[in-house]
């Protein structure tokens, strides 16, 4: 049973902060509740007041209104809303593909991108992919607004740089540049991924000129692995090319040195191997998208 709490239902961002100030800090924001209500049900957290963010219009909506047409996704937009959004499908198809397979349809209907990132579960699908995409989050509190890169935002398992009285109002993803492709692949046996890989590659004159790789579910937080990414630099942007095959092999070897955590989904060795398989698939998908954006 979820412990009892008082409910606040603010209808604006200003009213949300007022609601917070009325609580002495014994409060939590919630939107979908798919993570926080679960934790409360398990007896791991309780709050005097829960502040429902679903009626706050400033947290809604998806637009390409950021600088340079960046993708801006409101903090309380659900996984399902992202999955069926045409702007996201055009701008960041890898995120649509990812969202179509987060947990199950019920969690996707209810759970939000902002809530997922703020919960900072080490197996988070979006956190892993958005790391590779160089995304950032906008945090707003009484004192003002700041933007934090995802790799600075997630500070530990279930820990973020967000202050308790701050809200994640939006997630901002830079628009793809010419020759850039972004993709995400995961292996999953249960609700959450066993292993996941995000990748962003930029192709110039037929060669991989820039590479970023992230891994999730492998270590205690989703993380960028720059040495793995660097293996792709200079390789031909063609999965059939010899230099690409060598680059992928080198990248997999470097992944194999990662200090992975074994869990119910498999041993560290098995999970590193799976990550290598996912890396190959993600790199191939990213190259296809890069070719389409050439």
């Amino acid at each position, binding site marked *: 049973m979820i412990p009892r*709490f008082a409910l606040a239902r603010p209808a604006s961002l200003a009213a949300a902060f007022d609601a917070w100030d009325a609580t002495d800090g014994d409060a939590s924001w919630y939107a979908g509740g*798919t993570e926080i209500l679960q934790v409360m049900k398990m007896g791991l957290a309780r709050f005097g007041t829960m502040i429902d963010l679903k009626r706050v219009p400033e947290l809604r909506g998806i637009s390409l209104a950021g600088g340079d047409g960046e993708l801006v996704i409101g903090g309380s937009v659900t996984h*399902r809303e992202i999955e069926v959004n045409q702007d996201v499908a055009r701008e960041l198809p890898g995120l649509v593909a990812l969202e179509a397979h987060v947990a*199950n349809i019920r969690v996707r209907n*209810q759970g939000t991108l902002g809530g997922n990132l703020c919960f900072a579960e080490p197996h988070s699908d979006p956190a892993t992919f958005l790391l590779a995409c160089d995304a950032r989050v906008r945090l707003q509190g009484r004192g003002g607004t700041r933007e934090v890169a995802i790799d600075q935002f997630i500070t530990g398992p279930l820990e973020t740089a967000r202050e308790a009285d701050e809200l994640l109002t939006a997630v901002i993803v830079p628009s793809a540049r010419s020759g850039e492709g972004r993709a995400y692949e995961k292996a999953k046996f249960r609700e959450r991924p066993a292993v996941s890989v995000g990748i962003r590659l930029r192709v110039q004159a037929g060669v991989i000129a820039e590479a970023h790789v992230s891994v999730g579910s492998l270590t205690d937080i989703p993380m960028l692995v720059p040495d793995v990414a660097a293996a792709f630099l200079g390789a031909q942007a063609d999965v059939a090319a010899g230099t690409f095959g060598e680059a992928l092999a080198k990248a997999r070897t470097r992944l194999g040195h990662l200090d992975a955590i074994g869990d119910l989904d498999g041993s560290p060795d098995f999970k590193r191997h799976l990550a290598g398989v996912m890396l190959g698939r993600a790199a191939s998908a990213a190259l296809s998208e890069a070719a389409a954006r050439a």
Partner: protein
Amino acid sequence: MPETIDIKLSVNGLAHELAVQANVTIADLLRDELGLTGAKISCDMQVCGACTVLVDGLAVSGCTYLAVDADGREVATVEGLARDGVLSPLQQAFIDHAAFQCGYCTPGMLMSATALLAENPSPSRAEVIAGIEGNICRCTGYLPIIDAVLQAAEAGAQR
């Protein structure tokens, strides 16, 4: 103790005005207050799908969806599928294909598939499998369930 909150919601087309504690889930409200025990609490962590109900047409886990969040919305449960004693095409298809044994997952399966067919009246087999991915059945091995959903889609297309 926190006060109750007044909510208005429709359940299977019937309007209700209720005073509820904020921590009560929609599954508990349906089962304990309204006597609608179709939605089952099984895993109680949004994994198994036995508690699936629809809120404004969207499938949610009743076990982890607050009743206060259904304020002003339309809730649909398995009890509302049959009309005037006539089973929905999906329910009939479950019988035709013997798509259940113990029956514990069936209300959730039916509601997930109802939402799927409302959104996509002619799903492919792969789309049916993806649509009920989050509903666990220990008896059937899923094949009769998938066949039943496909039959219901066909029946819907013929109407």
